[in-house]
């Protein structure tokens, strides 16, 4: 048939063409949406195709100052699950292999999928299902792993301890919690993180860096080799080993002496600030906070009324008592309030206030050196009053007091020293504003606050601050921030610890103070600590009043007087007079430090101390405090 070119329907070609164009435009928009606007497809593709295997580095080991290994790692095994790959899964068989029951399985699964507990949960990536398999479970599961698609075993490590000491100092590691997961993207659920002690404060050094292997996975879940032949893999970096300044033998001995007592011993090497011994009692064996019994043991420790989880060395705040006096003497001399010869009288008490604070019997009047030796309260009350009421040097009591405070701060009191352990407390040295507020006026005077002259009242210090002050005197006017880590492998120490901090008080003044402290040992209240003729010890006792019970017993000192090698602070809660408990412990610790052993002549003292029990009566029943009962390390 001949074609009539005036076909009435010719216009329909436009409609047909329009349909074609229209559909293509829609499709191109859809492509745009899928490929450009929707990043989640890229992620799905990656999670489909990539299996990211975490490579966990070894956590850093910890050594003592003599190279003795304290903390090391032991392998442990976690069960990981990729839900999306699981498919046909014989749950019963799986439970039997692991020797868990069905309800446990369901609970573990629910916990794994709970986004409140596990914010990073995804059915595409390996998730922690069950941690710390026993060796038997590991063996059985490993054999039958092929039966359970989507299940992997992840090698992890767990901490091991060679000595049952230093629990709270070393700290423990546990699974990272929700807050840490949210604040630091380095961690994923199931990772371990230091929770206390050195494990916490040096977490970044110890944890190393996780590595990753990226494997290609095909649609059947079979691994098809490494992505880009491993070009994008990252090798794990081992954690840094730490060498502590602590001497484990000294430390263990200190914990031994402090058994059945509550308190702290801190020993610092003045010329470096290194802490050679830091005891907090009651203490516990760090090994109990590892492994399957962690939960149970932790609860017990937490419930223990004597609070073994607190590191009293840095977090216990006590009125320093008479150990405060040397600092007072130094300030008064520096400000010219007194000289070496200035004498004040004492009639069994501070006369201007009617004999309060009271004082024990000694000659009167005394100058600074004998005042320190006999620990005369009156002397220092006079001194404080003289300073605070001096209107030639200071316009008012506020200025005087703030000057007073500034010296104390420079000597390490009243603020965190910056020790490399967590939970350090500041102590408390008030400023003038504080008293203005408390006393509700600005024109108070020393007599309103007289007890601070003798280290009571509002003044609070931690044992490490007291030991640090002893180091200040030992060095004759400066200190280094005390620290427990002496060296970290592959990195220098933070300069925080290597800078001298000056007290801005002359050497000569501290020389006088030191003399006073030396006399306290030879003829004063610290006689028990006298180690002459071998070592000349300088010391100061303290008996700090405790409104809740018996007074605390304190001892502060350093030795030898010239070229000192160690500064020490001891505090025994409720130990009453300083001389009763703290000083003997100080003596024994010094013996151990200098001679490595206790001479026969001191054995009786050692025995006495060992058998002294000073535990406030909170419970009448027997408490299960985990104590260290051997001096030897486990290898002997």
């Amino acid at each position, binding site marked *: 048939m001949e074609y009539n070119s005036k076909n009435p329907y010719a216009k*329909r070609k436009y409609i047909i063409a329009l349909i*074609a164009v229209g559909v293509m435009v829609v499709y191109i928009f859809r492509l745009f949406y899928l490929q450009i606007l929707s990043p989640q497809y890229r992620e799905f*593709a990656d999670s489909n195709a990539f299996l990211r295997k975490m490579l966990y580095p070894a956590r850093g080991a910890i050594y003592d100052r003599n190279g003795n290994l304290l903390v090391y790692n032991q392998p442990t095994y976690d069960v990981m699950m990729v839900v999306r790959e699981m498919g046909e899964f014989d749950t019963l068989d799986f439970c039997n292999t692991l020797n868990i029951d069905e309800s446990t399985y369901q609970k573990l699964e629910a916990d794994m999928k709970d986004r409140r507990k596990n914010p990073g949960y995804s059915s595409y990536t390996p998730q922690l299902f069950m941690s710390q398999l026993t060796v038997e479970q590991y063996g059985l599961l490993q054999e039958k792993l092929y039966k359970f698609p989507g299940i992997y075993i992840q090698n992890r490590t767990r901490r091991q301890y060679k000595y049952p000491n230093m629990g709270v100092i070393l700290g423990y590691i546990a699974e990272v919690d929700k807050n840490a997961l949210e604040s630091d993207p380095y961690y994923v659920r199931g990772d371990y993180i230091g929770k206390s002690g050195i494990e916490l404060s040096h977490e970044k050094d110890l944890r190393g860096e996780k590595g990753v292997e990226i494997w290609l996975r095909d649609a059947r879940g079979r691994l*098809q080799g490494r992505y880009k032949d491993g070009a994008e893999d990252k090798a794990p970096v081992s954690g840094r080993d730490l060498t502590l300044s602590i001497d484990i033998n000294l430390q263990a001995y200190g914990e031994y002496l402090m058994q059945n007592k509550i308190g702290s011993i801190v020993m610092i090497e003045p010329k470096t600030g290194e802490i050679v011994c830091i005891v907090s009692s009651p203490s516990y064996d760090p090994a109990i906070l590892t492994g399957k019994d962690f939960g149970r043991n932790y609860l017990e420790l937490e419930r223990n009324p004597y609070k073994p989880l607190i590191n009293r060395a840095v977090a216990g705040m006590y009125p320093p008592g008479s150990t405060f006096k040397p600092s007072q003497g130094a300030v008064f001399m520096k400000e010219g309030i007194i000289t070496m010869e200035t004498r004040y009288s004492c009639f069994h008490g501070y006369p201007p206030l009617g004999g309060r604070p009271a004082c024990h019997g000694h000659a009167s009047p005394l100058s600074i050196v004998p005042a320190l030796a006999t620990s005369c309260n009156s002397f220092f009350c006079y001194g404080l009053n003289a300073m605070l009421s001096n209107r030639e040097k200071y316009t008012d009591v506020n200025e005087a007091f703030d000057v007073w405070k500034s010296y104390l701060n420079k000597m390490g009191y009243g603020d965190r020293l910056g020790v490399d352990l967590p939970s350090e407390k500041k102590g408390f040295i008030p400023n003038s504003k504080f008293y203005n507020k408390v006393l509700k006026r600005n024109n108070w005077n020393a007599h309103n606050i007289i007890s601070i002259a003798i280290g009571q009242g509002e003044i609070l210090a931690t044992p490490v601050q007291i030991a640090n002050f002893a180091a200040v005197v030992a060095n004759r006017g400066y200190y280094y921030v005390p620290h427990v880590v002496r060296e970290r492998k592959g990195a220098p120490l933070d300069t925080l610890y290597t800078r001298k901090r000056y007290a801005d008080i002359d050497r000569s003044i501290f020389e006088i103070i030191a003399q006073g402290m030396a006399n306290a040992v030879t003829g004063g209240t610290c006689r028990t600590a006298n180690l002459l003729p071998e070592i000349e010890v300088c010391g100061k006792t303290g008996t700090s009043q405790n409104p809740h019970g018996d007074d605390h017993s304190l001892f502060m000192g350093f030795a030898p007087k010239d070229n000192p090698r160690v500064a020490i602070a001891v505090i025994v809660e409720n130990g009453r007079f300083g001389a009763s408990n703290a000083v003997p412990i100080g003596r024994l610790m010094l013996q151990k430090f200098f001679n490595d052993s206790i001479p026969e002549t001191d054995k009786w003292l050692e025995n006495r101390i060992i058998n002294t029990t000073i535990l406030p009566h909170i419970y009448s029943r027997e408490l299960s405090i985990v104590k260290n009962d051997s001096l030897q390390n486990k290898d002997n």
Partner: protein
Amino acid sequence: MYLNSGEIKDKGQVDRLTVLMYVFFLILGWLSVYAASYDIENAVSLFDLSERATMQLVWIGTSLILAFALLKIDTGFYETYAFVFYLVGLVLLIVTFIVAPEIHGSRSWLVLGPVRLQPAEFMKFIIALALAKVFSLYDFRLMEWKNLLLIFSILLLPFLFVVLQSETGTALVYLSFLLVFFREGLPGGVLFVFVAAIVYFVLGIKFSDTQIGLFSLGEFITLILIILFTTVLVRNYVKRKEVVYTILGISASVFLIAYFLSFFGVKIDWGLVALIALGTVILYLSYLFFLYRKRVYVYMLAFAIGSFVFLESTEYVFNDVLQPHQRIRIEVALGMKQDFRGAGYHVGQSKIAIGSGGFLGKGFLKGTQTKLKYVPEQDTDFIFCTIAEEAGFVGASIVLILYLCFILRLIYLAERQTTTFGRVYGYGVVSVFLFHLIINIGMVIGIMPVIGIPLPFFSYGGSSLWGFTFLLFIFLRLDKSRRKK
């Protein structure tokens, strides 16, 4: 007897542009198949015939030879033997249905030694030829009942046989020739009815969960749509304009009355209200018919009533006629089900592969989803994923635009045909290609349900490649010998 080309000299040339595009598609297509069947582990020789990429080369080579041959054959040949081809084709389809072994769930392959052929693929161009022949018969008028029956039968017989082979997807291709009818004068209203039917179906299924009184939400919306569609048809086909306003007025009144009543505390079943509205409109149309006796009113009535019947039967058809795997595919496409394991997995992986391609793609042979075989059927029906993943948005869009140009070129060629036979056949070619494109790409990107039809020239497969080559080059031959006006 209806030869007209024997004496006419070939004045024209083979359209080079189209041939160029064809070759280009073949090359791109082969590269995609290579990438899709690439196995990271084993580097396989290109000479290994068991490899798909190699086999595809064979098919491409033979197609080129075929194309060449087709261009040489006299045009009259095609026109003369159109009906013969058709009969042979039908017989082949029946034979296939009877003897074919079951492969991949369908019985549509004839095995001849090492070669497997799908007659259903070849039926595409055969139908086009048959239709062209019918339309070019002397004094053929489309809108006569006899003729309508004839052309629909030409479509529906093969449709039936292929459905029996369990290849519903391919069967649906035959329905695409409706576009040809549209071009040749089928009233737009018919197309509109088809579109309306699809809309009813989709709405009815997608919103079948919530209830509005007597009906589901989907049915409710559809009832309102039926009224609106009827109005549209009335506006186009009925001369009296006031009919439109009356219908709208009646429906609105019914709803207003109901709304009014609800203030009196009467509990209104809105589904019932919609039904009443529709019923009133139907009554009105019947009234008009009795009044004016015009045929057009019958058509309107048929549409309104038919739509309602269709709507009510969708649920039955969906649940009892369609097979489970077809149901799921539709549900996935409509976004009703996620089904990550079955049909949803397929499209899900496809979208992931496409989406991860980004702007520039991952590079040739570097597509992770492709290499790692995440998308099933990636070298056949889902071949487009390979392009999208490895060439990105840029590459995929270019391919789409190329296809668009191809279609538009074919439309242009069809329009410039000087014979009805040529034009009808040409539009047949357009319809088939357009349908494949819309469905295949739509399915891969998640807009259309998964219907198994290939992407022309790209998907691996000898039968489809040959079938398309036949389809295209017969047309190019016809075009070559078109008379200059």
